[in-house]
Protein backbone atom coordinates (compact mmCIF):
# COMPACT_ATOMS: atom_id res chain seq x y z
CA UNK A 1 0.00 0.00 0.00
CA UNK A 2 1.34 3.37 -0.84
CA UNK A 3 1.35 5.99 1.76
CA UNK A 4 -1.00 8.80 1.07
CA UNK A 5 0.69 12.09 1.08
CA UNK A 6 -0.83 14.28 3.67
CA UNK A 7 -0.18 17.92 3.85
CA UNK A 8 -1.20 19.81 6.88
CA UNK A 9 -1.57 23.52 6.38
CA UNK A 10 1.02 25.41 8.41
CA UNK A 11 -0.45 26.66 11.65
CA UNK A 12 -1.43 30.24 11.24
CA UNK A 13 0.81 32.60 13.12
CA UNK A 14 -1.07 34.82 15.46
CA UNK A 15 0.37 37.45 17.76
CA UNK A 16 -0.95 37.52 21.28
CA UNK A 17 1.55 40.04 22.63
CA UNK A 18 0.14 43.15 24.25
CA UNK A 19 1.40 46.20 26.09
CA UNK A 20 -0.24 47.68 29.10
CA UNK A 21 1.65 50.93 28.76
CA UNK A 22 5.28 50.00 29.41
CA UNK A 23 4.34 46.52 30.70
CA UNK A 24 4.91 44.10 27.86
CA UNK A 25 3.13 40.76 28.06
CA UNK A 26 3.55 37.84 25.68
CA UNK A 27 -0.19 37.25 25.79
CA UNK A 28 -3.11 39.19 27.26
CA UNK A 29 -3.94 36.75 30.08
CA UNK A 30 -3.16 37.62 33.66
CA UNK A 31 -4.52 36.38 36.99
CA UNK A 32 -6.49 38.62 39.30
CA UNK A 33 -5.11 39.56 42.67
CA UNK A 34 -6.29 37.42 45.55
CA UNK A 35 -7.32 34.54 43.34
CA UNK A 36 -3.94 33.04 42.57
CA UNK A 37 -2.04 33.17 45.86
CA UNK A 38 1.59 33.93 45.11
CA UNK A 39 1.61 31.64 42.09
CA UNK A 40 2.99 28.56 43.78
CA UNK A 41 -0.47 27.19 44.60
CA UNK A 42 -1.29 26.79 40.91
CA UNK A 43 2.15 25.77 39.64
CA UNK A 44 1.14 22.18 40.41
CA UNK A 45 -1.52 22.39 37.73
CA UNK A 46 0.35 23.89 34.77
CA UNK A 47 3.47 25.73 33.70
CA UNK A 48 2.93 29.31 34.82
CA UNK A 49 5.08 30.51 31.90
CA UNK A 50 2.01 29.91 29.79
CA UNK A 51 0.46 33.12 31.13
CA UNK A 52 1.17 36.69 30.18
CA UNK A 53 1.36 37.84 33.77
CA UNK A 54 0.28 37.02 37.25
CA UNK A 55 -0.97 39.45 39.84
CA UNK A 56 -0.18 38.29 43.33
CA UNK A 57 -2.29 38.57 46.46
CA UNK A 58 -2.45 42.17 47.73
CA UNK A 59 0.56 43.26 49.77
CA UNK A 60 0.72 45.60 52.71
CA UNK A 61 3.65 47.03 54.62
CA UNK A 62 3.12 44.64 57.54
CA UNK A 63 1.59 41.14 57.47
CA UNK A 64 -2.16 41.22 57.88
CA UNK A 65 -4.42 38.65 59.53
CA UNK A 66 -7.55 39.49 57.58
CA UNK A 67 -11.17 39.14 58.62
CA UNK A 68 -12.71 36.49 60.87
CA UNK A 69 -14.46 33.53 59.22
CA UNK A 70 -16.80 32.75 57.60
CA UNK A 71 -15.22 34.77 54.84
CA UNK A 72 -16.91 33.48 51.73
CA UNK A 73 -20.24 32.24 50.49
CA UNK A 74 -21.58 31.17 47.15
CA UNK A 75 -24.18 33.29 45.37
CA UNK A 76 -25.95 32.81 42.03
CA UNK A 77 -23.15 32.43 39.46
CA UNK A 78 -20.77 34.08 41.85
CA UNK A 79 -19.41 34.35 45.33
CA UNK A 80 -19.05 36.90 48.07
CA UNK A 81 -15.76 37.25 49.85
CA UNK A 82 -14.50 39.33 52.72
CA UNK A 83 -11.01 37.94 53.17
CA UNK A 84 -9.81 41.27 54.47
CA UNK A 85 -6.53 41.26 52.57
CA UNK A 86 -4.78 38.61 54.66
CA UNK A 87 -1.20 38.61 53.40
CA UNK A 88 2.39 37.91 54.37
CA UNK A 89 3.52 41.52 54.08
CA UNK A 90 5.74 43.05 51.42
CA UNK A 91 9.07 42.01 52.95
CA UNK A 92 8.23 38.34 53.30
CA UNK A 93 6.79 38.42 49.80
CA UNK A 94 10.05 39.76 48.40
CA UNK A 95 12.24 37.31 50.31
CA UNK A 96 10.14 34.15 50.47
CA UNK A 97 7.55 34.23 47.69
CA UNK A 98 9.02 36.24 44.83
CA UNK A 99 12.11 34.04 44.22
CA UNK A 100 9.80 31.14 43.29
CA UNK A 101 8.38 33.19 40.44
CA UNK A 102 11.84 33.90 38.99
CA UNK A 103 11.90 30.48 37.41
CA UNK A 104 8.98 31.35 35.15
CA UNK A 105 8.94 33.43 32.01
CA UNK A 106 6.13 35.58 33.28
CA UNK A 107 5.46 39.15 34.25
CA UNK A 108 4.82 39.67 37.94
CA UNK A 109 2.35 42.34 38.94
CA UNK A 110 2.44 43.17 42.65
CA UNK A 111 -0.89 44.34 44.00
CA UNK A 112 -0.50 46.76 46.90
CA UNK A 113 -2.68 48.49 49.45
CA UNK A 114 -2.32 50.47 52.65
CA UNK A 115 -4.17 52.31 55.36
CA UNK A 116 -2.48 55.58 54.59
CA UNK A 117 -0.89 57.21 51.57
CA UNK A 118 2.48 56.81 53.27
CA UNK A 119 1.96 53.07 53.54
CA UNK A 120 1.10 52.78 49.86
CA UNK A 121 4.23 54.78 49.08
CA UNK A 122 6.44 52.64 51.30
CA UNK A 123 5.21 49.35 49.85
CA UNK A 124 5.69 50.66 46.31
CA UNK A 125 9.21 51.83 47.13
CA UNK A 126 10.19 48.40 48.47
CA UNK A 127 8.82 46.61 45.44
CA UNK A 128 10.57 49.08 43.19
CA UNK A 129 13.90 47.73 44.41
CA UNK A 130 12.88 44.07 44.25
CA UNK A 131 14.18 42.05 41.33
CA UNK A 132 11.48 40.34 39.32
CA UNK A 133 8.56 42.68 39.97
CA UNK A 134 7.42 44.10 36.65
CA UNK A 135 4.51 46.31 37.62
CA UNK A 136 2.51 47.55 40.56
CA UNK A 137 -1.26 47.40 40.75
CA UNK A 138 -2.62 49.84 43.28
CA UNK A 139 -5.71 48.57 45.05
CA UNK A 140 -7.82 51.52 46.03
CA UNK A 141 -11.02 49.56 45.79
CA UNK A 142 -11.16 46.71 48.29
CA UNK A 143 -14.65 46.77 49.79
CA UNK A 144 -13.69 44.63 52.79
CA UNK A 145 -11.44 46.75 54.94
CA UNK A 146 -12.52 49.70 57.01
CA UNK A 147 -9.63 52.03 56.37
CA UNK A 148 -7.79 52.40 53.09
CA UNK A 149 -9.08 50.34 50.23
CA UNK A 150 -12.35 51.62 48.93
CA UNK A 151 -12.18 54.74 51.10
CA UNK A 152 -9.51 55.98 48.68
CA UNK A 153 -11.15 54.63 45.58
CA UNK A 154 -14.53 56.28 46.07
CA UNK A 155 -13.19 59.78 46.59
CA UNK A 156 -11.77 61.66 43.61
CA UNK A 157 -9.15 63.67 45.47
CA UNK A 158 -7.94 60.69 47.50
CA UNK A 159 -7.73 58.65 44.31
CA UNK A 160 -5.47 61.25 42.80
CA UNK A 161 -3.34 61.70 45.91
CA UNK A 162 -2.64 58.04 46.54
CA UNK A 163 -1.90 57.28 42.89
CA UNK A 164 0.34 60.31 42.57
CA UNK A 165 2.26 59.21 45.67
CA UNK A 166 2.75 55.68 44.32
CA UNK A 167 3.73 57.09 40.94
CA UNK A 168 6.42 59.13 42.67
CA UNK A 169 7.68 56.14 44.65
CA UNK A 170 8.40 53.81 41.75
CA UNK A 171 9.62 53.75 38.20
CA UNK A 172 7.75 50.52 37.55
CA UNK A 173 4.58 50.56 35.45
CA UNK A 174 1.66 51.46 37.72
CA UNK A 175 -1.88 50.18 37.26
CA UNK A 176 -4.75 51.65 39.25
CA UNK A 177 -7.40 49.15 40.30
CA UNK A 178 -10.55 51.19 40.47
CA UNK A 179 -13.75 50.60 42.36
CA UNK A 180 -16.99 49.81 40.56
CA UNK A 181 -18.86 50.93 43.68
CA UNK A 182 -19.33 54.49 42.45
CA UNK A 183 -21.99 56.04 40.26
CA UNK A 184 -19.59 56.70 37.40
CA UNK A 185 -16.09 55.25 37.13
CA UNK A 186 -15.01 57.60 34.33
CA UNK A 187 -14.11 60.60 36.53
CA UNK A 188 -11.97 58.28 38.66
CA UNK A 189 -10.24 56.98 35.56
CA UNK A 190 -9.58 60.57 34.51
CA UNK A 191 -8.08 61.32 37.94
CA UNK A 192 -5.90 58.23 37.69
CA UNK A 193 -4.65 59.36 34.30
CA UNK A 194 -3.85 62.80 35.71
CA UNK A 195 -1.88 61.14 38.50
CA UNK A 196 0.31 59.56 35.85
CA UNK A 197 -0.56 55.86 36.06
CA UNK A 198 0.18 53.63 33.09
CA UNK A 199 -3.03 51.64 33.01
CA UNK A 200 -6.28 50.79 34.74
CA UNK A 201 -7.48 47.53 36.27
CA UNK A 202 -11.24 47.27 35.93
CA UNK A 203 -13.09 46.11 37.94
CA UNK A 204 -12.72 45.15 41.57
CA UNK A 205 -15.56 43.29 43.27
CA UNK A 206 -19.01 44.77 43.72
CA UNK A 207 -20.11 45.37 47.29
CA UNK A 208 -22.72 42.78 48.18
CA UNK A 209 -24.47 40.98 51.00
CA UNK A 210 -26.25 37.69 51.55
CA UNK A 211 -28.45 36.54 54.43
CA UNK A 212 -29.16 33.02 55.61
CA UNK A 213 -32.92 33.02 56.03
CA UNK A 214 -32.85 30.08 58.44
CA UNK A 215 -30.50 31.70 60.93
CA UNK A 216 -31.40 35.25 59.82
CA UNK A 217 -27.71 36.05 60.00
CA UNK A 218 -25.40 37.43 57.31
CA UNK A 219 -23.66 34.58 55.54
CA UNK A 220 -20.23 36.10 56.01
CA UNK A 221 -18.86 37.47 59.26
CA UNK A 222 -17.95 40.83 57.78
CA UNK A 223 -21.68 41.27 56.92
CA UNK A 224 -20.87 42.70 53.50
CA UNK A 225 -18.36 41.41 50.99
CA UNK A 226 -17.11 41.67 47.45
CA UNK A 227 -19.16 39.95 44.77
CA UNK A 228 -17.18 38.24 42.02
CA UNK A 229 -17.74 35.63 39.35
CA UNK A 230 -19.85 35.54 36.18
CA UNK A 231 -22.67 37.35 38.00
CA UNK A 232 -20.75 40.63 37.74
CA UNK A 233 -19.48 40.27 34.18
CA UNK A 234 -22.05 42.52 32.47
CA UNK A 235 -21.28 45.29 34.96
CA UNK A 236 -17.56 44.90 34.33
CA UNK A 237 -18.02 44.89 30.57
CA UNK A 238 -20.09 48.06 30.78
CA UNK A 239 -17.45 49.84 32.87
CA UNK A 240 -14.56 48.76 30.64
CA UNK A 241 -16.53 49.97 27.64
CA UNK A 242 -17.35 53.35 29.20
CA UNK A 243 -13.83 53.98 30.46
CA UNK A 244 -12.17 52.86 27.24
CA UNK A 245 -14.20 55.35 25.27
CA UNK A 246 -13.49 58.18 27.68
CA UNK A 247 -9.87 57.71 28.71
CA UNK A 248 -6.80 56.83 26.66
CA UNK A 249 -5.16 54.51 29.20
CA UNK A 250 -4.82 50.79 28.49
CA UNK A 251 -7.17 48.62 30.53
CA UNK A 252 -6.62 45.32 32.29
CA UNK A 253 -10.19 44.01 32.23
CA UNK A 254 -11.61 41.59 34.77
CA UNK A 255 -14.83 40.51 36.41
CA UNK A 256 -16.28 37.06 35.98
CA UNK A 257 -14.13 35.75 33.15
CA UNK A 258 -14.66 31.99 33.00
CA UNK A 259 -13.61 31.11 29.47
CA UNK A 260 -11.91 32.57 26.41
CA UNK A 261 -15.15 33.94 24.97
CA UNK A 262 -15.54 36.00 28.13
CA UNK A 263 -11.96 37.23 27.72
CA UNK A 264 -12.64 38.22 24.10
CA UNK A 265 -15.77 40.04 25.26
CA UNK A 266 -13.62 42.20 27.56
CA UNK A 267 -11.14 42.89 24.76
CA UNK A 268 -13.94 43.93 22.42
CA UNK A 269 -15.25 46.24 25.12
CA UNK A 270 -11.88 47.92 25.31
CA UNK A 271 -9.53 45.89 27.50
CA UNK A 272 -5.98 45.44 26.25
CA UNK A 273 -5.41 42.50 28.57
CA UNK A 274 -7.60 40.49 30.92
CA UNK A 275 -7.34 39.01 34.39
CA UNK A 276 -8.85 35.69 35.35
CA UNK A 277 -10.07 35.66 38.94
CA UNK A 278 -12.77 33.55 40.54
CA UNK A 279 -12.50 31.07 37.64
CA UNK A 280 -9.15 29.93 39.07
CA UNK A 281 -11.02 28.66 42.13
CA UNK A 282 -13.42 26.65 40.03
CA UNK A 283 -10.95 25.34 37.51
CA UNK A 284 -7.26 25.51 38.45
CA UNK A 285 -6.22 25.53 34.79
CA UNK A 286 -8.74 28.23 33.77
CA UNK A 287 -6.19 30.95 32.95
CA UNK A 288 -4.06 28.57 30.91
CA UNK A 289 -7.12 27.26 29.06
CA UNK A 290 -8.12 30.83 28.26
CA UNK A 291 -4.75 31.49 26.58
CA UNK A 292 -5.40 28.49 24.33
CA UNK A 293 -8.97 29.56 23.68
CA UNK A 294 -8.02 33.08 22.66
CA UNK A 295 -5.47 31.70 20.23
CA UNK A 296 -8.07 29.37 18.77
CA UNK A 297 -10.56 32.21 18.40
CA UNK A 298 -7.96 34.27 16.57
CA UNK A 299 -7.13 31.47 14.16
CA UNK A 300 -10.77 30.71 13.48
CA UNK A 301 -11.66 34.35 13.00
CA UNK A 302 -8.57 35.30 11.07
CA UNK A 303 -7.26 37.75 13.63
CA UNK A 304 -3.51 38.10 13.15
CA UNK A 305 -2.88 40.34 16.13
CA UNK A 306 -4.96 40.42 19.30
CA UNK A 307 -4.48 44.17 19.52
CA UNK A 308 -6.69 44.51 16.46
CA UNK A 309 -9.65 43.51 18.62
CA UNK A 310 -9.24 46.00 21.44
CA UNK A 311 -12.36 48.11 21.73
CA UNK A 312 -13.77 46.74 18.48
CA UNK A 313 -17.29 46.13 19.72
CA UNK A 314 -19.52 46.79 16.76
CA UNK A 315 -22.00 49.39 17.94
CA UNK A 316 -24.84 49.76 15.42
CA UNK A 317 -25.04 53.27 14.07
Amino acid at each position, binding site marked *: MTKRKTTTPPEKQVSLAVELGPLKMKNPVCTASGTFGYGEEYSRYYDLSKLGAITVKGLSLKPL*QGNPPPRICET*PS*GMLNAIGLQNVGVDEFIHKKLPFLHRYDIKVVANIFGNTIEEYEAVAARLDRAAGVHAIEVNISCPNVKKGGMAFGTDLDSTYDVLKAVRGATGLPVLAKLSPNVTDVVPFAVKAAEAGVDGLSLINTLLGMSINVKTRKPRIANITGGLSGPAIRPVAIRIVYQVHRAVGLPILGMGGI*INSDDAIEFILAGATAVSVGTANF*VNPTAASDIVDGIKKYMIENDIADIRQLVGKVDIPA
Partner: protein
Amino acid sequence: MQATVTSNENIFGSYFHLEVAAKGIGRKAGPGTFYMLKVASGTDPLLRRPISLHRVVSDDAVRFLYKSVGRGTNILGRLVPGDSLDIIGPLGNGFKVGKSVKLAMLVAGGIGVAPLLGLAEHIMKTRTDVTVVAFIGGRSEEDLLAIQEFRELGVRMYLCTEDGSLARCGIVTDTIEEYIKRYAPSGTKGWEMFSCGPKGMLRGVDAIASMHKIKHHASLEANMACGVGACMGCVVSILDRKAGVPVYKKVCDDGPVFDAEDVVW
Protein backbone atom coordinates in the same frame (compact mmCIF):
# COMPACT_ATOMS: atom_id res chain seq x y z
CA MET B 1 -9.60 15.25 36.18
CA GLN B 2 -12.71 13.69 34.71
CA ALA B 3 -13.91 10.77 36.81
CA THR B 4 -16.72 8.39 36.00
CA VAL B 5 -19.45 7.72 38.50
CA THR B 6 -19.61 3.98 39.12
CA SER B 7 -22.28 4.15 41.82
CA ASN B 8 -24.26 6.78 43.69
CA GLU B 9 -26.50 5.12 46.18
CA ASN B 10 -28.94 6.73 48.57
CA ILE B 11 -28.24 4.70 51.73
CA PHE B 12 -31.13 6.23 53.62
CA GLY B 13 -32.45 9.65 54.52
CA SER B 14 -30.14 12.21 53.01
CA TYR B 15 -27.02 10.03 53.06
CA PHE B 16 -25.32 8.77 49.92
CA HIS B 17 -22.43 6.57 48.92
CA LEU B 18 -20.70 7.81 45.79
CA GLU B 19 -18.03 5.82 44.05
CA VAL B 20 -15.99 7.28 41.20
CA ALA B 21 -13.26 5.93 38.98
CA ALA B 22 -10.39 7.75 37.31
CA LYS B 23 -6.81 6.79 36.66
CA GLY B 24 -4.71 7.37 39.75
CA ILE B 25 -7.50 9.03 41.75
CA GLY B 26 -6.86 6.92 44.83
CA ARG B 27 -3.12 6.52 44.57
CA LYS B 28 -2.04 9.35 46.85
CA ALA B 29 -5.23 9.48 48.88
CA GLY B 30 -4.50 9.28 52.59
CA PRO B 31 -7.16 9.14 55.30
CA GLY B 32 -8.54 12.59 56.04
CA THR B 33 -7.76 14.08 52.64
CA PHE B 34 -10.54 15.48 50.50
CA TYR B 35 -11.61 16.13 46.92
CA MET B 36 -13.22 19.13 45.23
CA LEU B 37 -16.20 18.09 43.13
CA LYS B 38 -17.81 20.18 40.41
CA VAL B 39 -21.34 18.89 40.78
CA ALA B 40 -22.65 20.47 37.57
CA SER B 41 -21.15 22.12 34.55
CA GLY B 42 -21.93 25.77 34.03
CA THR B 43 -21.75 28.62 36.48
CA ASP B 44 -24.60 27.97 38.90
CA PRO B 45 -23.72 26.52 41.30
CA LEU B 46 -20.33 27.99 40.60
CA LEU B 47 -17.97 26.56 43.18
CA ARG B 48 -16.75 23.04 43.73
CA ARG B 49 -17.86 21.16 46.81
CA PRO B 50 -15.27 19.77 49.21
CA ILE B 51 -16.07 16.14 50.06
CA SER B 52 -13.82 14.07 52.26
CA LEU B 53 -12.49 10.71 51.24
CA HIS B 54 -14.44 7.87 52.78
CA ARG B 55 -12.36 4.96 51.59
CA VAL B 56 -9.88 4.13 48.89
CA VAL B 57 -11.29 1.38 46.70
CA SER B 58 -8.17 1.05 44.54
CA ASP B 59 -5.53 3.23 42.92
CA ASP B 60 -8.17 4.13 40.37
CA ALA B 61 -11.33 4.40 42.45
CA VAL B 62 -12.46 6.15 45.61
CA ARG B 63 -15.64 6.21 47.61
CA PHE B 64 -17.37 9.12 49.31
CA LEU B 65 -20.02 9.17 52.00
CA TYR B 66 -21.91 12.44 51.86
CA LYS B 67 -25.01 14.07 53.19
CA SER B 68 -27.29 15.93 50.86
CA VAL B 69 -27.62 19.21 52.71
CA GLY B 70 -27.88 21.95 50.12
CA ARG B 71 -28.08 22.79 46.50
CA GLY B 72 -24.69 21.35 45.51
CA THR B 73 -25.04 18.04 47.28
CA ASN B 74 -28.65 17.74 46.08
CA ILE B 75 -27.40 17.92 42.51
CA LEU B 76 -24.68 15.43 43.38
CA GLY B 77 -27.39 13.06 44.59
CA ARG B 78 -28.88 12.94 41.12
CA LEU B 79 -25.76 11.59 39.43
CA VAL B 80 -26.10 8.10 38.01
CA PRO B 81 -23.52 5.46 37.06
CA GLY B 82 -21.77 6.41 33.84
CA ASP B 83 -22.01 10.15 34.48
CA SER B 84 -18.84 12.14 34.25
CA LEU B 85 -17.67 14.13 37.28
CA ASP B 86 -15.03 16.85 37.24
CA ILE B 87 -12.91 16.30 40.34
CA ILE B 88 -9.68 17.59 41.88
CA GLY B 89 -7.76 15.76 44.54
CA PRO B 90 -6.74 14.30 46.84
CA LEU B 91 -6.12 17.59 48.63
CA GLY B 92 -5.05 18.66 52.09
CA ASN B 93 -3.19 17.13 54.98
CA GLY B 94 -5.01 14.16 56.40
CA PHE B 95 -4.62 12.13 59.57
CA LYS B 96 -1.10 11.17 60.60
CA VAL B 97 -0.75 8.24 62.95
CA GLY B 98 2.48 8.70 64.88
CA LYS B 99 4.82 5.84 65.71
CA SER B 100 4.06 6.01 69.40
CA VAL B 101 0.32 5.48 68.97
CA LYS B 102 -0.97 2.32 70.64
CA LEU B 103 -4.66 3.11 70.86
CA ALA B 104 -6.40 5.15 68.17
CA MET B 105 -9.69 6.57 69.44
CA LEU B 106 -11.81 7.54 66.45
CA VAL B 107 -14.51 10.02 67.37
CA ALA B 108 -17.29 10.78 64.92
CA GLY B 109 -20.40 12.91 64.96
CA GLY B 110 -22.93 12.31 62.18
CA ILE B 111 -21.46 12.62 58.70
CA GLY B 112 -18.09 13.25 60.39
CA VAL B 113 -17.65 9.50 60.35
CA ALA B 114 -16.85 9.71 56.62
CA PRO B 115 -13.07 10.18 56.81
CA LEU B 116 -12.73 8.01 59.91
CA LEU B 117 -13.64 4.75 58.21
CA GLY B 118 -10.76 5.28 55.80
CA LEU B 119 -8.53 6.00 58.76
CA ALA B 120 -9.60 2.80 60.51
CA GLU B 121 -8.89 0.79 57.35
CA HIS B 122 -5.54 2.48 56.93
CA ILE B 123 -4.47 1.77 60.51
CA MET B 124 -5.64 -1.84 60.44
CA LYS B 125 -3.80 -2.44 57.19
CA THR B 126 -0.53 -0.73 58.08
CA ARG B 127 -0.30 -0.78 61.86
CA THR B 128 -0.98 -4.10 63.53
CA ASP B 129 0.46 -2.64 66.75
CA VAL B 130 -2.39 -0.15 67.06
CA THR B 131 -5.81 -0.91 68.53
CA VAL B 132 -8.67 1.04 66.97
CA VAL B 133 -11.84 1.93 68.85
CA ALA B 134 -14.59 4.11 67.42
CA PHE B 135 -16.97 6.42 69.25
CA ILE B 136 -19.80 7.20 66.92
CA GLY B 137 -22.64 9.54 67.72
CA GLY B 138 -25.54 10.99 65.82
CA ARG B 139 -28.80 12.76 66.32
CA SER B 140 -30.83 9.66 65.67
CA GLU B 141 -30.54 6.06 64.45
CA GLU B 142 -30.30 7.04 60.79
CA ASP B 143 -27.37 9.35 61.54
CA LEU B 144 -25.16 6.52 62.76
CA LEU B 145 -23.30 5.72 59.61
CA ALA B 146 -20.76 3.18 58.39
CA ILE B 147 -21.53 0.94 61.38
CA GLN B 148 -21.57 -2.17 59.22
CA GLU B 149 -18.21 -1.31 57.69
CA PHE B 150 -16.60 -0.73 61.08
CA ARG B 151 -18.07 -4.01 62.28
CA GLU B 152 -16.61 -5.85 59.29
CA LEU B 153 -13.22 -4.37 60.08
CA GLY B 154 -13.56 -5.70 63.60
CA VAL B 155 -13.40 -2.27 65.23
CA ARG B 156 -14.92 -2.05 68.69
CA MET B 157 -17.60 0.62 68.61
CA TYR B 158 -19.27 2.76 71.24
CA LEU B 159 -22.47 4.14 69.79
CA CYS B 160 -24.92 6.73 70.99
CA THR B 161 -27.83 8.76 69.67
CA GLU B 162 -29.14 12.04 71.03
CA ASP B 163 -32.74 10.82 70.90
CA GLY B 164 -31.98 7.33 72.16
CA SER B 165 -33.42 5.70 69.04
CA LEU B 166 -30.42 3.38 68.84
CA ALA B 167 -27.76 2.40 71.35
CA ARG B 168 -27.37 4.57 74.40
CA CYS B 169 -29.01 7.94 74.66
CA GLY B 170 -26.47 10.71 74.87
CA ILE B 171 -23.65 12.44 73.09
CA VAL B 172 -20.33 11.08 72.01
CA THR B 173 -18.38 12.86 74.74
CA ASP B 174 -20.34 10.85 77.34
CA THR B 175 -19.17 7.58 75.84
CA ILE B 176 -15.57 8.76 75.67
CA GLU B 177 -15.63 9.85 79.30
CA GLU B 178 -16.97 6.48 80.35
CA TYR B 179 -14.35 4.70 78.33
CA ILE B 180 -11.62 6.78 79.88
CA LYS B 181 -12.98 6.28 83.38
CA ARG B 182 -12.91 2.57 82.81
CA TYR B 183 -9.60 2.07 81.02
CA ALA B 184 -7.47 5.12 81.75
CA PRO B 185 -6.47 4.04 85.26
CA SER B 186 -4.11 1.52 83.67
CA GLY B 187 -2.48 4.37 81.71
CA THR B 188 -3.18 6.48 78.62
CA LYS B 189 0.32 6.29 77.19
CA GLY B 190 0.08 5.90 73.42
CA TRP B 191 -3.59 6.95 73.28
CA GLU B 192 -4.51 9.44 70.59
CA MET B 193 -7.84 10.78 69.40
CA PHE B 194 -8.84 11.35 65.78
CA SER B 195 -12.08 13.22 65.40
CA CYS B 196 -14.43 14.68 62.84
CA GLY B 197 -17.86 16.17 63.38
CA PRO B 198 -19.68 19.36 64.29
CA LYS B 199 -17.56 22.07 65.86
CA GLY B 200 -19.35 21.88 69.22
CA MET B 201 -18.61 18.17 69.43
CA LEU B 202 -14.97 18.65 68.50
CA ARG B 203 -14.59 21.29 71.17
CA GLY B 204 -16.13 18.97 73.76
CA VAL B 205 -13.90 16.12 72.69
CA ASP B 206 -10.91 18.39 72.91
CA ALA B 207 -11.74 19.42 76.45
CA ILE B 208 -11.67 15.74 77.45
CA ALA B 209 -8.48 15.11 75.50
CA SER B 210 -6.68 18.00 77.19
CA MET B 211 -7.89 16.99 80.62
CA HIS B 212 -6.45 13.52 80.17
CA LYS B 213 -3.43 14.66 78.19
CA ILE B 214 -4.43 12.63 75.16
CA LYS B 215 -3.16 13.95 71.83
CA HIS B 216 -6.09 14.91 69.65
CA HIS B 217 -6.19 15.33 65.88
CA ALA B 218 -9.32 17.06 64.65
CA SER B 219 -10.54 17.33 61.08
CA LEU B 220 -12.19 20.71 60.54
CA GLU B 221 -14.50 21.97 57.86
CA ALA B 222 -15.18 25.39 56.39
CA ASN B 223 -16.73 27.11 53.43
CA MET B 224 -14.18 26.76 50.69
CA ALA B 225 -13.83 28.21 47.21
CA CYS B 226 -10.63 26.81 45.73
CA GLY B 227 -9.42 23.96 47.93
CA VAL B 228 -5.82 24.54 46.90
CA GLY B 229 -4.73 27.33 49.24
CA ALA B 230 -5.31 30.36 47.08
CA CYS B 231 -8.58 31.98 48.10
CA MET B 232 -7.98 32.25 51.87
CA GLY B 233 -11.68 31.73 52.33
CA CYS B 234 -11.55 28.68 54.59
CA VAL B 235 -9.43 29.90 57.47
CA VAL B 236 -9.73 28.88 61.09
CA SER B 237 -8.03 30.39 64.10
CA ILE B 238 -5.01 28.31 65.15
CA LEU B 239 -2.46 29.07 67.84
CA ASP B 240 0.97 29.82 66.46
CA ARG B 241 3.12 28.18 69.12
CA LYS B 242 6.25 30.12 68.26
CA ALA B 243 4.59 33.50 68.40
CA GLY B 244 2.11 32.52 71.13
CA VAL B 245 -0.77 34.17 69.27
CA PRO B 246 -3.64 32.84 67.18
CA VAL B 247 -3.26 33.09 63.42
CA TYR B 248 -5.60 32.20 60.57
CA LYS B 249 -4.71 28.89 58.93
CA LYS B 250 -6.35 27.43 55.86
CA VAL B 251 -8.48 24.34 56.33
CA CYS B 252 -7.73 23.28 52.76
CA ASP B 253 -3.97 23.14 52.74
CA ASP B 254 -2.79 23.71 56.31
CA GLY B 255 -5.46 21.19 57.36
CA PRO B 256 -8.09 19.89 57.24
CA VAL B 257 -6.59 17.90 60.12
CA PHE B 258 -5.14 20.06 62.87
CA ASP B 259 -3.53 19.40 66.20
CA ALA B 260 -6.67 20.13 68.22
CA GLU B 261 -4.68 21.56 71.10
CA ASP B 262 -3.84 24.54 68.88
CA VAL B 263 -7.35 25.17 67.58
CA VAL B 264 -8.94 28.31 68.97
CA TRP B 265 -12.48 27.04 69.43
